[in-house]
């Protein structure tokens, strides 16, 4: 609990100069795309949807709490000659926060890293992992306050010793809700 208060204190201290400079922008966005399992023999590719709240703190720094849900696809294997069995894909729910460095003005290029928690659920499986992601996004302001983006990221849900990895490709839309004066 003490650590959390320290984190809040440090966060407020970091935000103060940005707020004074009038650079904080808060937005809201939704996105969707595909999730491709990497090196996972027991999952197929599936759809992914999510929402996020991008907060631009400084010209070159933004943070973004997010939530995503994906339904990985079923996987069928031939267990013995002529006998195929199918394993349903996991439902993956992830929440976390990304830190990004946006370059550009109307067109933005932003590498980002993130951390969060991912839960995998299917028949016989209900596990939660620490989730890491690293990715690259490209954003376009199509009208004032409204932008579209395309992103590619590698997500790794780690058990500590191994991880379940997905390559996610998404298209998103964001709306700038307010800016400090």
């Amino acid at each position, binding site marked *: 609990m003490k650590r959390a208060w320290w984190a809040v204190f440090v966060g407020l201290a970091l935000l103060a100069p940005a707020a004074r400079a009038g650079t904080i922008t808060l937005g809201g966005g939704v996105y969707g795309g595909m999730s491709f399992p990497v090196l996972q023999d027991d999952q197929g590719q599936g759809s992914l949807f999510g929402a996020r709240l991008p907060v631009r703190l400084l010209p*070159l720094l933004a943070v973004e709490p997010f939530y995503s849900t994906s339904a990985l696809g079923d996987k069928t294997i031939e267990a013995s000659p002529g006998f195929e069995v199918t394993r349903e894909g996991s439902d993956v729910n992830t929440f976390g926060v990304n830190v990004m460095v946006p370059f550009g003005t109307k067109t933005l290029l932003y590498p*980002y890293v993130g951390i969060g928690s991912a839960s995998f659920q299917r028949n016989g499986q209900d596990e939660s992992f620490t989730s890491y992601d690293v990715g690259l996004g490209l954003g376009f302001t199509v009208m004032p306050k409204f932008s579209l983006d395309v992103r590619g990221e590698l997500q790794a849900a780690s058990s500590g010793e191994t991880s379940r990895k997905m390559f996610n490709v998404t298209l998103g839309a964001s709306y700038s809700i307010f800016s400090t004066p």
Partner: protein
Amino acid sequence: MKTLRRAVPLLALAALAAAGCMLTSGQFVATYNLPDPFDVNSIAFAGTSVDLNTISEYKDHKDELKRVEDLALVGNFTNLAFTTAQLEVWIVPDGSLTTLTPQQVKDNGTRLWGPLAVAGNSTEKVDWDRSSALFVGRQALIDEVKGDGHFALYVLANGGFSVRVTQGTLIVVVGAAI
């Protein structure tokens, strides 16, 4: 600003380095086929020896095996008797013990899977999803998979029973470094 511009790539690199083998790991499916058909009855009772070291997917990843991610026992389970059978699969750590009695199996082993109700003179196809939900002794099998990979499996049922398992396959998904 320059500091920030450098900070994120450095953080990303640090995260990748810290992740180490976490990133260079994967989930691999190993399948072991039981004798086909595998006939079991209460009079001529016997188990079957399973040696996972005979399958390449397991052998190739055994040294780097970190985690057992998923387990299943699939196949067609036929009840050759007239009355409903409650089938169970038991595991005995010593793979050479395939001639135990039902009581000895219960004394020396662990219930791995089941019960699966199979009506008289009928067949139940058990696929991957259904089988995963039937596992009750995951840890016992995980210990064997992470151990020597050699154990014995027994099919048990209530009362006088006669069961035929066809296309029986043990599926193990291992998490291993590559």
